[in-house]
């Protein structure tokens, strides 16, 4: 059986950044496995700009951002296999993969980095009554059709869900000559970035209807119209508010979920809130030597944070493969999400393995104005940071210094919460 130090599953921005960081840390025997015909992941279809402001201090499009990392991978001559699907990962890190040339093959890895990204929520979860005629697409599928295949799904469009991909596609289809009639959002706030609401909707006078949903879909073979209604505080449609819109396309932009079938089969424990693996400070899952980063760990909106997080996983995996990260005898601290904080990454911390500082990333469950992000060490508040705004669409983070952890030797639990 082939033996390598690190196998990276997925060649998107997470996998690429992890590979580069692992290599620079000294791991030279790395292999990236990617099921697509090119590296770059979802960025290849995200042709709009706005990527890389943090990392490169300039606004790049998705493919340009990916290209920067692909070049770093080629400069280091890090090996990768394309059109190669990983089928299984065993708890002792034997990776089974398949492609046309080699058929089914196995690789024994000292460390595995999960970087499979995420996929869109299936529309079955949307609970729209009525038929399922042709002409209904997820926003990401439409993005691939328009941007990669150059095929326009339709001319008259209604979009349900105001996540960023839906907003981006509202502009994209308008530029390609379609009439986007409206974007309906079930929640009283948009899940998308302000910048996208302004530049994708306002610029083209596309209305955004908050607290609205689709209550009926018409058309037997192909969609011909939808009915939109306002929803109350209970998110149930309000009678008498229905409005009918003719359309030939309905795009659903209803969120993303990490792609973890492989992980679960390997015995990796998932966090029910994120649907991503439960990890410690080194981004290691409950299966020793298996690490996770990027959208497979939790859905990111900014690719810059994906690269940053993945670089961390690359370094810790490289150390693990060298046998440096494997001492589990030290103390372990739990990280808890409370009062408005939906989840944290990581959920456990071994202070012995924290270098200079620990970054805890999290998301809130609602919009908070003029509130505080507080960090508690057991019952003592150690941080109380004022935030003008906190929104579910924006990932937040707090940084804790290793010094602080060392100064609190009896610490059992770190709690992150939002306080008025």
């Amino acid at each position, binding site marked *: 059986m082939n033996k390598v130090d690190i196998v990276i599953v997925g060649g998107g921005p997470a996998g690429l950044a992890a590979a580069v960081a692992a290599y620079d840390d000294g791991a030279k025997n790395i292999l990236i496995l990617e099921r697509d015909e090119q590296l770059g992941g979802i960025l290849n279809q995200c*042709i709009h700009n706005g990527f890389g402001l943090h990392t490169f201090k300039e606004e*790049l*499009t*998705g493919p*340009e951002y990916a290209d920067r990392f692909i070049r770093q991978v080629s400069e280091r001559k890090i090996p990768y296999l394309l059109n190669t699907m990983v089928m299984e990962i065993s708890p002792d890190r034997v990776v089974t993969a398949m492609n046309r040339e080699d058929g089914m093959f196995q690789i024994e890895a000292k460390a595995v980095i999960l970087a499979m990204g995420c996929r869109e929520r299936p529309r079955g979860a949307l609970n729209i009554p009525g038929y399922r005629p042709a002409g209904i697409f997820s926003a990401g599928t439409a993005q691939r059709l328009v941007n990669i295949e150059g095929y326009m799904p339709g001319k008259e469009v209604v979009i349900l869900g105001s996540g960023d991909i839906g907003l981006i596609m509202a502009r994209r289809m308008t*530029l390609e000559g379609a009439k986007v009639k409206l974007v309906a959002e079930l929640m009283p706030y948009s899940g998308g970035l*302000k910048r996208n609401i302004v530049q994708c909707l306002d610029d083209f006078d596309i209305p955004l209807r908050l607290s609205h949903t689709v209550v009926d879909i018409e058309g037997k073979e192909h969609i011909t119209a939808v009915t939109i209604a306002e929803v109350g505080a209970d998110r149930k449609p309000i009678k008498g508010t229905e409005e009918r819109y003719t359309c030939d396309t309905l795009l659903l932009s209803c969120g993303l979920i990490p792609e973890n079938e492989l992980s679960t089969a390997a015995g990796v424990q998932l966090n029910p809130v994120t649907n991503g693996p439960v990890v410690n400070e080194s981004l290691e899952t409950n299966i020793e030597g298996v690490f996770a980063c990027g959208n497979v760990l939790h859905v990111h909106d900014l690719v810059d944070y994906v690269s940053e997080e993945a670089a961390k996983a690359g370094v810790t995996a490289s150390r693990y493969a060298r046998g440096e990260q494997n001492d589990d005898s030290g103390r372990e601290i739990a990280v808890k999400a409370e009062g408005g904080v939906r989840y944290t990454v990581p959920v456990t911390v071994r202070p012995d393995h924290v270098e200079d500082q620990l970054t805890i990333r999290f998301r809130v469950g609602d919009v908070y104005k003029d509130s505080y992000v507080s960090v508690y060490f057991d019952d003592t508040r150690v941080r109380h940071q004022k935030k*003008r*705004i906190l*929104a579910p669409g924006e990932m937040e983070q707090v940084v804790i210094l290793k010094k602080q952890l060392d100064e609190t030797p009896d610490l059992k639990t770190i709690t992150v919460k939002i306080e008025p």
Partner: protein
Amino acid sequence: METKELTCINCPMGCLLTVEMDGDEIRDISGYTCPRGKTYAEKEVTNPTRVVTSTVKVVGGRKDRVACKTQYDIPKDKIGAVMEAINAAQAQAPVVIGEVLIADVAGTGVDVVATAHAV
């Protein structure tokens, strides 16, 4: 006197900005929480610009389309003209990232460049 309403895009606060215009002259800007909002409003009402991204048809290669962008931002009211030029254009494979696909698009003085490779 004309009143324009804008949303500042510089941070998640998304302040609602109100600009009082007298013809081409700004009389008053209100609603911003920090100076970035004021600067944004000034630019948006006097000279709004955008980077346009799309795809250009490719012939002679394996891929049918290549992603592209205007290298710099162009006046917002030229978006339509720029899109027409992009849709009329055709590139010959292989295309390398950064390659100029349309020079001086729609008289804006800005080039449309490839943002991906196409072989």
